[in-house]
């Protein structure tokens, strides 16, 4: 029970919530703004994380060069996915995007020479060495911590992640209010009508997909830095579904409901660890992990059935149909 009151644990939960905010924001740009059913968001996260790690470990690049390139790579992944698939009907597109993220995970698992394979980033470098990509980031984090007078790494990370998240949220909010954002919303509303108004629907969708992918890439970077090690199994479709759940929780189409959804989700997910009372104590602790996911599945269902506009959304703006 003491963990419940440990500041370090909740700082960690908030860091993860911050990472998910950025991931889900990307999804919001794709679906909430432009109506794209992207179920492969985690694939772009993987591209961001792996590109950075590979460049730092194998090519010896500095973190500060590798990171922007990783984000660009994720965006390029979005373009690559979108070019052949955005003209497909919505349900096919959804299925193809899942296939995309699974292919990414698959390649990462099997192309050991490129990605370290199923062992993860530890195996990125020469055989027999345990590779690390994190040194550049760690020293940066320490500097920031000193400058701000914070002693724990987790709290510093929390500040950094949330500052970045808030900047990205603000930028997205502004973007949505521009005429460009207006076209996106029109496409989401009725893409044929938008086309008859002279808008190049395909180009806009592609931009939304790529920008959302870039955001997922940023989330991937923070994920990599927070955990200092990852493997392909960290990028399962389950994460995409978590991001969708965050959108459902917070409300579709609204930028500032994303962090709300992420925090609620983070606390639900973390909070289910503390089911230290009967009947949950009858069940072994690794089985509690299954129960957590069952609860999450049930919440998704309940949300979709009863409150598809999310906690903060207005029924009138309900975008699910």
């Amino acid at each position, binding site marked *: 029970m003491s963990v419940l009151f440990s500041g370090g644990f909740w700082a960690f939960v908030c860091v993860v919530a911050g990472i998910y905010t950025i991931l889900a924001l990307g999804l919001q740009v794709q679906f909430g703004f432009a109506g794209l059913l992207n179920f492969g968001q985690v694939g772009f996260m993987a591209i961001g994380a792996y590109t950075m790690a590979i460049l730092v470990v194998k090519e010896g690049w500095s973190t500060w060069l590798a990171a922007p390139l990783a984000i660009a790579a994720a965006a390029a992944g979005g373009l690559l996915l979108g070019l052949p698939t955005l003209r497909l009907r919505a349900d096919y597109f959804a299925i193809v995007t899942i296939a995309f993220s699974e292919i990414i995970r698959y390649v990462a698992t099997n192309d050991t020479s490129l990605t370290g394979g199923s062992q993860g980033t530890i195996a990125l470098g020469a055989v027999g060495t345990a590779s690390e990509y994190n040194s550049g980031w760690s020293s940066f984090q320490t500097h920031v911590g000193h400058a701000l007078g914070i002693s724990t790494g987790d709290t510093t990370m929390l500040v950094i992640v949330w500052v970045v998240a808030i900047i990205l949220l603000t930028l997205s909010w502004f*973007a949505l209010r*521009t*005429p*460009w954002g*207006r*076209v996106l*919303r*029109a496409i989401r*509303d*009725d893409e*044929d*009508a*938008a*086309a*008859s*108004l*002279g*808008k*190049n*629907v395909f180009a806009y969708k592609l*931009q939304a997909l790529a920008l959302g992918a870039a955001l997922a890439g940023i989330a991937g970077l923070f994920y990599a830095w927070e955990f200092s090690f990852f493997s392909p199994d960290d990028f399962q479709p389950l994460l995409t579904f978590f991001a969708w759940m965050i959108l459902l929780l917070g409300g579709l189409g609204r930028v500032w409901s994303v962090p709300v959804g992420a925090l609620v989700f983070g606390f639900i997910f973390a909070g289910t660890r503390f089911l230290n009372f009967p009947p949950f104590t009858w069940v072994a602790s690794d089985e509690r992990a299954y129960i957590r996911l069952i609860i999450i599945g049930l919440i998704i269902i309940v949300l979709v059935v009863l409150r598809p506009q999310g906690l903060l959304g207005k029924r*009138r*703006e309900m*975008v699910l149909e």
Partner: protein
Amino acid sequence: MSALLEVEDVVRTFGAVRAVDGATFAVEEHSITGLIGPNGAGKSTLFATIAGSLKPTSGRIVFAGTRIDGRPAHRVARAGVVRTYQAARVLTRMSVLENLLLATRAHPGEQLTGVLFRPRAARAHEQRGLERAQELLALVGLESYIHEYAGTLSGGQRKLLDLARVLMVEPTLVLLDEPMAGVAPTLRVQLLEHILAVRRDRGLTFLIVEHDLDFVMQAADRVVVMNQGRVLTAGTPDEVRANDQVVDAYLGTTR
């Protein structure tokens, strides 16, 4: 002098069905041309082909001297040809004002590059759009709805919004698809007056598909009659009205 729009031998098939079977006619600049014919004559399909939502199976469509057949809908719209739909297709989850602002052409703010590198031009364009939107809404009598969701408008009001939107684009040729469908008689008069005024004041050209023959006879300078995918005849309303073949086509008398 060549016409503004020339449709030459356009064919559009759907599998075995020849919805449009070699249609040829011309629309003169500044005219109001009516396109009539019994159900199934191919009028809507032809409209869709001109507007770019469908590609013709064969044939040419020439607008202001350039071929537009086969161009995608958004490029046809940008060339100056704008169409409306039978059920006024407004963006229901956006406000009336936003519906109009979206209709402007070449808005720098609508491109990401414009947002980032030409903010002042974008703002100026937006301001002009705002002024024109207010003016057009006043024209059609919808000023008080300016910030309402377009989805809350009635059918007739949506038609007016549609008309205002069409005018925002500052098009050259307007394709109206059954503008009178489902419109109350009092509103019909209003709509007719708007169309005539707009043609007079802004020099637009109209091609109108319509079943309401009274309207067509009153409004149109020229009428093109289609039947079974082909153009039966074309001429002034009086000429067409007196034409036996046209009467037969509508009544289905066999010869």
